């Protein structure tokens, strides 16, 4: 086989294999949409499950996931953005900074179920929150932190250096420069990071297993110290724990979860491209 032939062969194989990997992604999404769309209705989204979950909707679980996502936003956003500002603007190139970076890399790598253990040990038991929205939200928030930090830091570093130089030379202090010159320009990137993090938090199951999620609750939560149902856990319950579950409800639940998470991804992508287009430096 000549060099040219093996070149052509390699190229063909790589292209075919890539198609075989990428096409199923589309297929998986379409498959869930196709099988789940029939279940979707206003009632499905708002009504509680009935008849041992075999009928009715997913209202309480959907609401629980929305509430949890809010708590995560409140927990992870300010903290993550502050840490990103520290890394991008204040941290010197020393041992401490290297440790902070190592810590963030490792936070990103810790298995989600280990976050669940930590949440159980600290928030549920040690701090005495019990299995509650606040315990689950804090656990998910910590898990989201590395995503928020690293994308925000990238966004802050992408603001050109001369913005800072000019602002400082006009007599602004360091914080004024960051607040009025750097952060506004870094905002789209920061938002992207936050939205991606929230999307991930909304879809996670393992961290909420022992910190907040309830199998079934007849009533909606009244405070952040109550348990709540949550969509990912609900999908787990109705697909493995309830015998004789109708497939349409399972697929419908999977579809709603998928739509929530993917819409976060989509919004993040739109924010990024839209803002990037307007930028002119």
């Amino acid at each position, binding site marked *: 086989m000549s*060099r040219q032939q*093996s*070149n052509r062969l390699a*190229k063909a*194989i*790589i*292209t075919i*294999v*890539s198609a075989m*990997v*990428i096409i199923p*992604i589309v297929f*998986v*999404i379409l498959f*869930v949409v196709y099988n789940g769309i029939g279940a979707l209705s206003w009632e499905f989204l708002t009504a509680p499950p009935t008849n041992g979950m075999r009928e009715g909707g997913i209202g309480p679980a959907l609401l629980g996931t929305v509430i949890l996502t809010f708590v995560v936003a409140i927990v992870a956003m300010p903290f993550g953005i*502050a*840490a990103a500002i*520290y*890394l991008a603007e*204040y*941290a010197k190139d020393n041992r401490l900074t290297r440790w902070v970076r*190592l*810590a*963030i*890399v*490792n*936070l990103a*790598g*810790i*298995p*989600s*179920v*280990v*976050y669940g*253990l*930590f949440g159980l*040990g*600290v928030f549920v038991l*040690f701090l005495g929150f019990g299995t509650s929205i606040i315990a689950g939200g804090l656990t998910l928030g910590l898990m989201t*932190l590395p995503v928020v930090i690293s994308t925000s830091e990238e966004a802050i570093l992408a603001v050109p250096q001369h913005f800072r130089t000019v602002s400082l030379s006009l007599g602004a*202090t*360091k914080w*004024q420069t960051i607040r009025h010159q750097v952060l506004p320009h870094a905002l789209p990137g920061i938002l992207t990071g936050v939205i991606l993090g929230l*999307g991930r938090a909304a*879809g*996670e*199951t393992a961290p909420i*297993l022992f910190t907040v999620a309830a199998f079934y609750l007849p009533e909606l939560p009244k405070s952040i110290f109550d348990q709540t149902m949550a969509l*990912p*856990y609900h*999908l787990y319950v109705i*697909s493995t724990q309830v015998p004789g579950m109708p*497939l349409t409800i*399972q697929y419908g639940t*999977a579809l709603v*979860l998928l739509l929530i*998470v993917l819409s*976060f*991804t989509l919004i993040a*992508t739109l924010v990024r491209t839209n803002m990037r287009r307007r930028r002119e430096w």
Partner: protein
Amino acid sequence: MTASKQAETQTKTPHRWGERVIETIIRISGVSTIVIVGLIFLFLLKEGLPTFLDIPLRQLFGRRWYPIEALYGILPLLVGSLLVTIGAVIIAVPLGLIVAIYLGEFAPTWLREILKPLIEILAGIPSIVLGFLGWVILAPLIQDMGAPTGLTAFTGSLILAYMALPTIISISEDALYAVPKEYRDGALAIGATQWQTIWRVVLPAARSGLVIAVMLGVGRAIGETMAVLMVTGNAANIPEPGPGMFFQPVRTMTATIAAEMGEVAQGSLHYNTLFGIGIILFLITFAINSIASRIVGVQGNRRRGGQL
């Protein structure tokens, strides 16, 4: 608004004071990431240490996980995690590299602009949704192919491979992208074909980045919980060694924690042991990520040095 802002700036003293507070908060937030990692490890130790003190080591690394009879042998769980992860790596690494090569070297720009977001979307699909699909589609399919049950280590490996692919693809592609264009031009100019250039020049040059991609893929696979819990059959047995071992039900460390933590009494030895498994998981992923980030550091320094 602008006027008041200016006035605020001119009265300097209170502003400086506020600034000091904000900067302190920022510094604390940054450094507390270290504290969080430390706290996570400490709390795992606090709840999990009795595992390693109260259970004789020989029993702890024994072959039987049977908490009802107080048998806490974690060997089956270690083997389960290992099998599922190895299977996933064998599937995902070559596929991920091939897709990365395609995206980085062959795909036309317009196609790459479509495919990259698509792969990001795959990364965003919740593991519980993939677990659900594995449970309703993949498992019956594998059973039809002749396995005694569809819930096997192999089923888990397939789902995990799919989940690790985005990580492997995007990091490998970054590594390929970081190879200077001069290398390719040089190889092509002396008459190498495109494939020869990729195989002999680009891939070796990107080697350390590719190693990182594989490591982080492994880290992702070994920590995955829900999908694995749903599709691997959850039998805490050590499969008979041999090629058939991938087609038997297994149980991973992560799945064990997820499945049993809800039912144990707080403070019992079973409870402690689940945290003990958490310690092992933490240490494995900590090692993987620390080594990977060290390689990145070395590589980054070298590249910066090269530019000067």
